């Protein structure tokens, strides 16, 4: 965009001349570097001026302040897709599957580029960017130091090469070199964090057994969380961390901390508590991280609710005895553990919250999330009499939160779930307005969490609000923020039905098609049923007929691929719609389709057909119709034959055919 840039530069050039003129003048005036001649002049002027010239002090601001100010003028564009995609009708993702595919492909492209840059640093030595952009320059990913020394060990630790680090440490021990305590702490930390395995290199070639750390899983947007992924890392008996730990001549609290936290993270809860007891026996004081880990592990160790709570309170007491200050994560783990403590959690949760306030620790969204989870259990939601949600929302209203706990991102979807279950629209709006405050939009989570949140919000809207409001939100949310699934579309159809706006059905069908739900048979069937249920005004009927033809083309395997199976209901609905709009030829083709798909049309349909044939005056058609119904062995055949004979003027042979059919189907036989 050099050309526009030049023009813009020109524009700013003109403006800056004016601005800088003034700035420079002021600058000059205050710089005290006056040349003697002018000094004279200004001296005289000062005496003569009637009003003192007050020059205001120049304001200073950060480098990004102007950009931030300008960006605050920009609102959201409702029709645009997400900003990272190309804004083009062909290239924007229209379905949620496309969204995932495109965003993943963008990420993989970036990862591939980073891989190349990091592995070939000799081609990327020259730095073009001014000011410097660090993330575009190559990072060191391969080891440089090959000798057996503590520096090499530190390098391996910083590059997260766990196995290499362990090997290096063993070599150092064998060589007899002492390793400093700090490095040992780092080593134990890194082994415990990654559970004694090498983490998957970001952007490197994907291996089959990707036992990554949590950060890898989080990076993949929209990836389905497989339970197997999270459980894959298991703390093995006597792995390297424990071995190194046992070999240490002296162990301090930080070593224990690394070990205990690693054990809790990777599922060895009993061992964690045993290690903690060891530590107490050695008369060391724990730190706050150990306690956080142990509290979160407490529900795994005990089965009964009160036992769990007893364990947690015991840990908290010990924490107080050892004079350790709790932090936000402590309270959050207490609340999280309370979620699994059944009914006695409610009082304790409120007590925990008040303690937090007493200590001056502001609760984060995760704390509120846990509180909501305690008070609104899914099974008993209709019987609960609490209005905790109102209290929580009033507490957090207008506050901008930052992410302090990994569970912060679950707050919004859970809050919306509660609103949905309690059918509280007002609170739903309050939750949604909280998303718009400050930086809270960052806490909506990845695209999967977002889709859950918006899905629930839209569901609530469809249930509770008038159709105009629903449509207004529909236009705002879809497809810029959220691709609804088939269930969401069905909710929308229901809302349309409730408020009697069935004339909007053809536009909804267009959206259903572009969202990729045209192959969901129950959705399509419901749409057709709604359209065909009653008679509407002629224009609406026309639009319905056009829509029905579109649906038909989908059934027939639009674009060479069959999507849906024909069912009796869909066939009859489409035929009925075509009949009502007087599209006789197409309706006739539909009847033939009935035959080919071995489906049986209903009597009402055939009666309608006969009336239409009567209005268009096509007696051969009428005869064919009766023959068709006979072929289907329908009980309505004699009635049809009778009507045909009565209403149409037919030739002799047609009459004979008809009378044969009529008689052959005599029910008395």
């Amino acid at each position, binding site marked *: 965009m050099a*050309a526009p840039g030049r023009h813009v530069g020109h524009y700013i050039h003109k403006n800056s001349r004016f601005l800088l003129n003034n700035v420079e003048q002021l600058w000059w005036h205050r710089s005290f570097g006056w040349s003697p001649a002018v000094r004279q002049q200004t001296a005289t002027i000062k005496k003569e001026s009637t009003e003192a010239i007050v020059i205001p002090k120049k304001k200073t601001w950060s480098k990004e302040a102007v950009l931030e*100010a300008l960006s605050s*003028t920009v609102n959201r564009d409702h029709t645009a897709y997400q900003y990272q995609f190309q804004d083009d009708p062909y290239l924007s993702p229209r379905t949620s599957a496309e969204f995932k595919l495109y965003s993943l492909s963008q990420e993989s492209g970036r990862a591939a580029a980073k891989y190349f840059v990091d592995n070939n640093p000799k081609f990327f030595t020259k730095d073009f960017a001014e000011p410097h952009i660090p993330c575009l320059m190559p990072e060191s990913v391969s080891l440089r130091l090959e000798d057996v020394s503590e520096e090499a060990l530190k390098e391996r630790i910083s590059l997260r090469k766990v196995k290499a680090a362990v090997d290096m440490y063993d070599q150092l021990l064998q060589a007899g070199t002492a390793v400093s305590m700090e490095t040992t702490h780092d080593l134990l930390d890194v082994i415990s964090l990654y559970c004694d395995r090498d983490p998957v290199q970001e952007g490197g070639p994907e291996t089959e057994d990707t036992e990554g750390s949590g950060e890898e899983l989080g990076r993949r947007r929209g990836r389905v969380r497989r339970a197997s992924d999270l459980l894959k890392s298991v703390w093995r008996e006597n792995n390297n961390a424990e071995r190194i730990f046992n070999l240490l001549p002296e162990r301090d609290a930080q070593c224990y901390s690394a070990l205990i936290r690693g054990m809790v993270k990777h599922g060895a809860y009993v061992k964690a508590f045993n290690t903690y007891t060891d530590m107490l026996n050695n008369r060391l004081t724990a730190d706050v991280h150990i306690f956080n880990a142990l509290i979160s592990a407490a529900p795994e160790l005990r089965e009964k609710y009160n036992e769990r709570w007893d364990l947690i309170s015991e840990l908290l007491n010990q924490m107080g005895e050892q004079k350790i200050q709790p932090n936000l994560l402590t309270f959050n783990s207490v609340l999280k553990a309370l979620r699994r403590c059944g009914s006695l959690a409610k009082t304790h949760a409120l007590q925990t919250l008040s303690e937090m306030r007493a200590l001056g620790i502001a609760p984060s969204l995760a704390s509120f999330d846990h509180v909501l989870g305690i008070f609104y259990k899914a099974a008993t939601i209709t019987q609960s009499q609490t209005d905790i949600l109102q209290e929580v929302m009033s507490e957090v209203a207008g506050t901008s939160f930052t992410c302090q706990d990994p569970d912060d991102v679950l707050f919004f979807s859970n809050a919306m779930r509660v609103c949905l279950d309690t059918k509280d629209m007002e609170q739903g709006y309050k939750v949604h307005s909280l998303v718009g405050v400050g930086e809270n939009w960052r806490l909506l989570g990845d695209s999967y969490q977002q889709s859950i949140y918006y899905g629930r919000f839209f569901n609530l809207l469809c249930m509770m609000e008038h159709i105009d409001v629903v449509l207004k939100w529909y236009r705002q949310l879809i497809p810029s923020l959220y691709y609804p699934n088939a269930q969401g579309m069905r909710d929308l159809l229901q809302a349309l039905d409730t408020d009697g706006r069935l004339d909007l059905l053809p536009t909804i069908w267009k959206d259903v098609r572009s969202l990729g739900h045209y192959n969901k048979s129950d959705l399509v069937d419901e749409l057709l049923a709604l359209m065909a249920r009653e008679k509407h005004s002629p224009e609406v009927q026309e639009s319905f007929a056009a829509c029905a033809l579109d649906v038909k083309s989908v059934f027939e395997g639009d674009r060479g691929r069959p999507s849906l199976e024909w069912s009796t209901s869909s066939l009859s609905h489409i035929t009925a719609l075509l009949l009502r709009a007087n599209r006789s030829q197409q309706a006739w083709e539909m009847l033939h389709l009935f035959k080919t798909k071995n489906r049986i049309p209903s009597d009402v349909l055939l009666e309608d057909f006969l009336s239409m044939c009567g209005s268009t005056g096509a007696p051969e058609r009428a005869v064919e119709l009766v023959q068709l119904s006979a072929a289907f062995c329908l009980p309505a055949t004699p009635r049809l034959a009778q009507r045909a004979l009565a209403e149409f003027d037919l030739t002799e042979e047609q009459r004979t055919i008809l009378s044969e059919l009529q008689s052959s189907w005599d029910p008395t036989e």
Partner: protein
Amino acid sequence: MAAHTSKAFLSLGRINGPGLGFHNSLTRVTYATALSTTNSTGNKGFPDRGNRGAFVRKPRREAGEPRTEKMAVNQDWTAVYSAAAPFKPGSVPLPVRMGYPVKGGVPPEKKGNLELIKIPNFLHLTPAAIKKHCEALKPFCTEWPSALDTEATLDEHFPIKLESTDYISAGTSVRNPSARIVHLKVKLSRLNLDDHARKKMLRLVGDRYCKDTDILTIRADSCPLRQQNYEYAMYLLTVLYHESWKTESWEAERTAADMDEYSWEDSPSQKNILDTLAHMKMAGEGEGEAVREELLGRPEVQEYRDSVMRLKNEGESESSMHQYREAVKKVLNL
């Protein structure tokens, strides 16, 4: 449905197997042959050898409808084009046409029109957007001093004006070497210069002085940074001022050819007129010097002097020639 069909044929295959004496395994899947019904259009994975030879590729993806269809008439345009962006036909709801018209037709439409993409557009700088930007930038500005309300006051209090330019472009670097240039403008009438100093200053600066506006412009671009150029420009101004006040010893060696203005005293013209008058009139009236003095004092001679000076300094023109003519007539009593 495809699976359904193939299963049906599979069962047929099985039945026929023993009858036809096949020794092959009966679990072999039979392909759908030419007997299949209309559903053969759907069998993608199975190449239909009976009907078609080639295998049908996945059909080409179609473009969705452009988002201009969904845009409301009263939408916020500043949200759609919030920053400088190329022209996107699917996002701009205007029926724009551009280009050389098709023969006997109209210029091509906006869809796929490269001409519209090549040119710079200001869709992000509509008046509404500019208003919003100005409002957002107001907190960065300070108030203009109320005492400085006219140009005259400005000139009076701030006679030196400095100009420099900032550049923006889309590229790898925000630096632009042209941003270092500083122009310093000052009116010479504001500087305290006497006649000699002024003339010397004008000689020193040469082209940088504009006679019509009486502004001296110093352009500093030899240093790499704007700050350095500014300091150099101020230094230059100071030095010029002081130098023009100094009188060097060699300045006394000026000859008539070095003078900027024509001065009548001791010039050939004075000599000539005095000689002529002396010859004409007072032949033998007195000594040379006294006569000369007396002649110089006469008003006609002064007029003549003025007219000659005007002619020489300002050049020839209607009025100056006319004045010379009148003066000559008076002096020579014609």
